């Protein structure tokens, strides 16, 4: 067999055919990406990359229960060797705690198995790059510097199983970040967006947003640490909610070891977390944020199981109208808890369906408060309360009588997103946004602006 000529689908079939295990799941991901990076109005790095990864998960019952072994390789590996390595890993692993029968029913929404993988190349920036060059020129004329990054990737995953699944999903992912600075770096602002194909990206609009915020930064105001009425824009909200989402593991909660554990045992499902009717949800069909409609899991953890590969990942509410409704729960843990299995989807939406204002209107309705831009270097300080620390970044603006009156120094904050939901007094209409801290891993979010009356700015950061 000339393996170097094999398509992804042929590779999946060959691995399944070579199996001597009790069961097997194989998936092949074809990935293409292109990127541009720039600093101080000039290119720094760039690239066009292609890769193929092959993951073979073998399931072997040695008598004491089903065991799983997961082995991955790039390129077009030797099928017999790869399958044998996976089966050896399964035999060595011992019975898996998360063993359940493999999924046999095809989930809705999978793509065309027989079609070629999706592609991208550096040409995706054919119009973007000259427009960026023009923005550099305009920034230079204003005595300003632009920094940032643009990336587009296409991943096509073909997943097959010995139970008969043949599933395909395509995931386009794109992001642009534009950071404006004064030549001495003392003023710094940011604008960013996620995209599926770059056709909806306007460099001019991003550059105009940066120019507006650079203007707001002309007047510098020093404020001390303390609790402030704060407007968290959608990007800042997304970074806090993503961390909350990543913490929503049912097993950890049931075992008493995360913020969703209930004192006395069990979890906090049913508890009211927010006074406002805020809903946190995921939906693989959300327009503009489309994500895989089934699970693809290379390795088991408390929040996902290799046995659940191919399981449907339908739309789900995590918090409904302010009340905690679901935690992430693989089928195996669901069985031990007589609770429903739930699947984490690769997008996240927070909304107040009764919201009637836009972010700009929330600013206009603010007597005195801080308007943030993004949050940075977010890390967990105390898992008990989900206390997070981090920095404000690229624009803390003072709003007085509905107008931005200047740029304030940055702060280190210490806040729990769970507590913040409880203290939020107003939310805007939801819009698509790009997280700042987590956009390497998570780009598909839609969030409102939130008003928090007493955000904890723990200390001043001299950084800009």
């Amino acid at each position, binding site marked *: 067999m000339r393996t*170097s000529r094999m398509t992804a689908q042929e590779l999946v079939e060959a691995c399944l055919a070579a199996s001597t295990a009790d069961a097997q799941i194989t998936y092949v991901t074809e990935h293409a990406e292109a*990127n*541009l990076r720039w*600093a101080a109005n*000039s*290119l720094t*790095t*760039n*690239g*066009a*990359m*292609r*890769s193929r990864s092959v993951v073979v998960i073998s399931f072997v019952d040695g008598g004491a229960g089903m065991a799983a*072994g997961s*082995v*991955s390789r*790039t*390129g077009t590996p030797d099928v017999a060797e790869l399958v044998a390595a996976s089966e050896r*890993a399964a035999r*060595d*692993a*011992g019975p898996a705690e998360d063993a359940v029968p493999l999924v046999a029913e095809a989930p809705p929404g999978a793509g065309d198995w027989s079609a070629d993988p999706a592609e991208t190349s*550096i*040409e995706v920036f054919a119009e973007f*790059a*000259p427009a960026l060059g023009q923005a*550099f020129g305009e920034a230079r004329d204003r005595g300003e510097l632009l*920094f940032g*990054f643009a990336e587009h990737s296409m991943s096509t995953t073909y997943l097959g199983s010995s139970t008969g699944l043949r599933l395909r999903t395509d995931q386009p992912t794109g992001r642009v*970040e*534009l950071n404006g600075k004064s030549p001495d770096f003392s003023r*710094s602002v*940011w604008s960013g967006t996620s995209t599926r194909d770059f056709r909806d990206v306007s460099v001019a609009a991003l550059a105009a947003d940066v120019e507006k915020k650079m203007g707001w930064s002309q007047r510098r105001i020093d404020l001390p640490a303390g609790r402030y009425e704060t407007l968290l824009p959608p990007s800042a909200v997304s970074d806090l909610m993503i961390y909350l989402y990543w913490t929503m593991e049912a097993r950890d909660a049931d*075992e*008493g*070891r995360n913020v969703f*554990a209930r004192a006395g045992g069990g979890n906090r499902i049913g508890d009211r977390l927010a006074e406002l009717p805020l809903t946190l949800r995921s939906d693989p069909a959300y327009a503009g944020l489309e994500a895989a409609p089934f699970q693809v899991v290379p*390795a*088991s*953890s*408390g929040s996902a199981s290799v046995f659940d590969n191919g399981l449907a990942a339908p739309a789900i509410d995590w918090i409904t109208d302010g009340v905690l409704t679901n935690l992430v729960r693989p089928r195996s843990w669901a069985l031990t808890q007589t609770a429903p299995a739930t699947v984490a989807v690769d997008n996240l939406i927070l909304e107040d369906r009764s919201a009637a204002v836009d972010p700009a209107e929330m600013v206009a309705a603010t007597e005195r408060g801080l308007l943030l831009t993004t949050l*940075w*270097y*977010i*890390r967990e*300080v*105390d*898992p*008990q309360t989900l*206390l997070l620390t981090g*920095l404000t*970044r690229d624009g803390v603006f003072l709003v007085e009588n509905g107008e931005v009156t200047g740029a304030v120094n940055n702060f*280190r904050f*210490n806040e729990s997103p769970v507590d913040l939901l409880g203290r939020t007094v107003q939310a805007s209409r939801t819009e698509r946004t790009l997280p700042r801290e987590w956009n*390497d891993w998570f780009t598909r979010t839609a969030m409102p602006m939130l008003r928090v009356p007493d955000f904890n700015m*723990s*200390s001043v*950061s*001299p*950084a800009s």
Partner: protein
Amino acid sequence: MPGTRSVDESFLALPLSALTDAALTRAVDLGCEHADIRVERIRTQTISLRDARPEAVTDGEDLGLAVRVVHEGTWGFAAGVVLTAAEAVRLAEEAVVVAKVSAAINTDRVELAPEPVYADATYVSDYEIDPFDVPDADKTGLLAEFSERLLAADGVEHVRASCMHVKEQKYYADTAGTRTRQQRVRIHPDLTALTVDRATGSFESMRTLAPPVGRGWEYLTGTGWDWDPELSELPELLREKTKAPSVEAGRYDLVVDPSNLWLTIHESIGHATELDRALGYEAAYAGTSFATVDKLGTLRYGSPLLQITGDRTAPHGLSTVGWDDEGVAGQEWDIVADGVLVGYQVDRNMARLRGLPRSNGCAFADSPGHVPVQRMANVSLEPTPDGPSTEEIIGGVERGIYVVGDKSWSIDMQRYNFQFTGQRFYRIEGGKLAGQLRDVAYQATTTDFWGSMSVVGGPQTYVLGGAFNCGKAQPGQAAPVSHGCPTARFDQVSILNTVQEAGR
């Protein structure tokens, strides 16, 4: 020094010369001033156990090649996974296309600082047992046994154990004639014990302090770390922590153990002295640095006791290499001398920009699919020759806190304001440890903190700490790096109570 091992034959058997000839010839034909090719194979295994039962064993191998060119003064980069001469030619052509598309936004002409040619060079890191030669069942079995020891202790309700090990094989060739072959092995074992108080809903955890290192499986069996005492102490230390009083916020003298201090060095000195940050290349992402080039030679970074070196040579260091990803040999140099900023970490283009005669070898790509960027050397704090022991340093503190183990970390985008927590905090009263404290975080500004360093321990306190997952660049890349340091004392540092910070 390199060990007695050689680069695995299965890697050397790849068509390295044919790929090189194909890619570099095509790049030169297309008018490139410089071209290089990297072929890498990175094997990674992660074993994780939950309560001594296997949770996941993943075994991955990333094999690919990348061509990087300088074409008319602009970078171009292309990477793929098919190891054929035809693909190498295609990648050279694609890298030139990338350079041409990018020329529209390039104004800085790329030129590389000179470096001697290493025509046929090999480096293998110093390890005894290749973790990938050990059967999975043996590795999982040892981690299960470690877990069982912790679970058997009173009060330990859950245990997480994991071990990640990596074998990185790298071939580099460039149009100047350098050809290097390298093999590095590293390992990161870690166990965390957790206790839960169901009635109050509170929980607390404690993790082993064994740092990730450039060693093989022998690290789990007694070479370079003594596991038995650490595993036997951990449950009692955890029990003591759950009963400890909550800290009173305020200013304290801190004695910081190397198991915590390495991370503070990493964040507040390691990243702050990366020249690409100081020049703004990371400005939109990882950030910039307060330690700008106009302050080189004058910035008072810390007290006169502060001696910081950068190196890519320390034995078992995670950033230790034979040559970097631009063919520059590993070196050692001063970054802070007597408390004053005197050096940066650079790559070849930045070295030329700064007028330096040579790069100090800090270019690194985390995988065949990524472009090399300036990454951290082993950045370390030098101990005081004949300096005091940890007990002696604690003995000199009237009212303070002894900080052990790293946990939470966060620092701003110019590397001024940081906040760290730890695994254990001990009250110091009258020169003696007086039990653990809970809910502690320390917060400071970089130069204030290092300026307050009043005692630096001796070589007997020195430990090489580190991390596998230092993040930088877009697309994101993870780099392993070590930081050696002794125990040190810092006067009147701000301590926060994290429960109060949460508004409780």
